[in-house]
């Protein structure tokens, strides 16, 4: 290894701990920002802007730590720092990394590309579990490698230890998912040939599939009676009837009665179900 004897390649476990620590700090910043915005703009605004605020929090946290050239709190905690080809990482590369954090904000607009992004970050994680070094894909692309200034020298030069078993498990899972996906595609193709003239049906099928892919996170069987789609951020009114949060809030702005039972509907009584 060409690293100086003071700097050893950071252990995978240390890198993961640093990331986890940073995540919890980002969460702290996020909840502070959420509280402040809620104070001024109300709960509905926060609900609508949740994605923005989440990423804003991350950017604020990274700018005030990594952005000014110092370490993040997580990196400090486990005592690791970045290098690239034995040199310290410059401010430009750090800023580029912070800017890249904004990309997920456009994930919904990117559509299919976002899915490839997800796949890439999974592949990255597998590589990390096998070979260490880059826990997230941004750092891999920018060549931001971690070294540890602590004296521990590990015996294997990849520093991953038992994490490689996790990598194997993840790789196996991904392969399995891949096989299922390919089978689906093949089936879809065959079907397309069969009902090529049944155009309407096929369209219906496609859009249904899109929908299930979109709403994996909050998949519920009962649809919201206001938008007729599956419930998104289910919210219960005082009377117990459940709708999407944004749907019922919009309705509450013009009417103070439940759409279903006409019971009094108070926006402040709406309960977000998680």
């Amino acid at each position: 290894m060409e690293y100086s004897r003071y700097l050893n390649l950071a252990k995978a476990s240390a890198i993961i701990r640093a990331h986890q620590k940073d995540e919890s700090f980002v969460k702290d910043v996020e909840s502070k920002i959420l509280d402040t915005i809620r104070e001024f703009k109300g709960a509905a605004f926060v609900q609508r802007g949740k994605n923005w605020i989440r990423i804003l929090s991350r950017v604020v946290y990274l700018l005030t730590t990594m952005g000014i050239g110092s370490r993040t709190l997580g990196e400090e905690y486990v005592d690791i720092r970045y290098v690239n080809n034995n040199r310290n990482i410059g401010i430009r590369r750090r800023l580029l990394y912070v800017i890249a954090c904004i990309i997920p904000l456009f994930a919904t607009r990117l559509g299919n590309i976002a899915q490839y992004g997800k796949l890439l970050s999974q592949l990255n994680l597998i590589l990390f579990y096998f070979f260490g070094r880059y826990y997230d894909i941004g750092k891999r692309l920018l060549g931001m490698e971690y070294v540890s200034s602590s004296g521990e020298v590990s015996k294997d030069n990849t520093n991953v230890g038992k994490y490689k078993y996790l990598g194997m498990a993840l790789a196996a899972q991904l392969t399995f998912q891949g096989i299922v996906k390919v089978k689906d595609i093949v089936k879809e193709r065959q079907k397309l040939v069969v009902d090529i003239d049944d155009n309407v049906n096929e369209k219906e099928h496609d859009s249904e599939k899109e929908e299930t892919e979109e709403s994996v996170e909050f998949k519920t069987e009962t649809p919201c009676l206001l938008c007729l789609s599956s419930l998104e951020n289910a919210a219960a009114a005082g009377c117990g009837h459940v709708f999407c949060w944004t749907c019922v809030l919009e309705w509450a702005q013009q009417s103070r009665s439940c759409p279903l039972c006409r019971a009094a509907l108070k926006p402040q009584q709406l309960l977000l179900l998680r």
Partner: protein
Amino acid sequence: MSNAQKRLLKEFKKYSNPNNKLSESIISLTPINDNNLFDWIAIINPIETIYKKGFYKLSIKLSNTYPLTPPIIKFITNESQIDRDEQITYQIPHCNIDFKTGEICLDILKIDNWSPIWTLEYSILAIIYLLNNQEPNSPLNIDFANLIKLNDKLAINSIINYYIK
């Protein structure tokens, strides 16, 4: 795509799905053209009412605030000569329907009584229900309201059928 468009697309898909039978009284319920979901036409044949021999055409106009605001539904009474359909009856004598304009007086289609869980299909069914449950005390057609009040079934039926070809 706005919330209104999303919801209307859901409804459109539901109504155009052959597995999903509409009420027998509703012959068709579709947007005038596929590109504009805010302008629909319904054709009804209200078989379970005293209007059962007629086919009537309704225009349904929606705004971008649907379903927070109700659809505006009217009987079509003055279709231009070109679009006229021989099957359709353009005159409907009913207490709560304006004979000239086709305007309908139905409380659930008024903004204060409207509920966003009601769909276009439900709204049309409510209008069909209104055909047999006339409300002569808040009339848009005073002459016909008087006839309903007298409960002269023979006269009522003959006037309705006079306009049906």
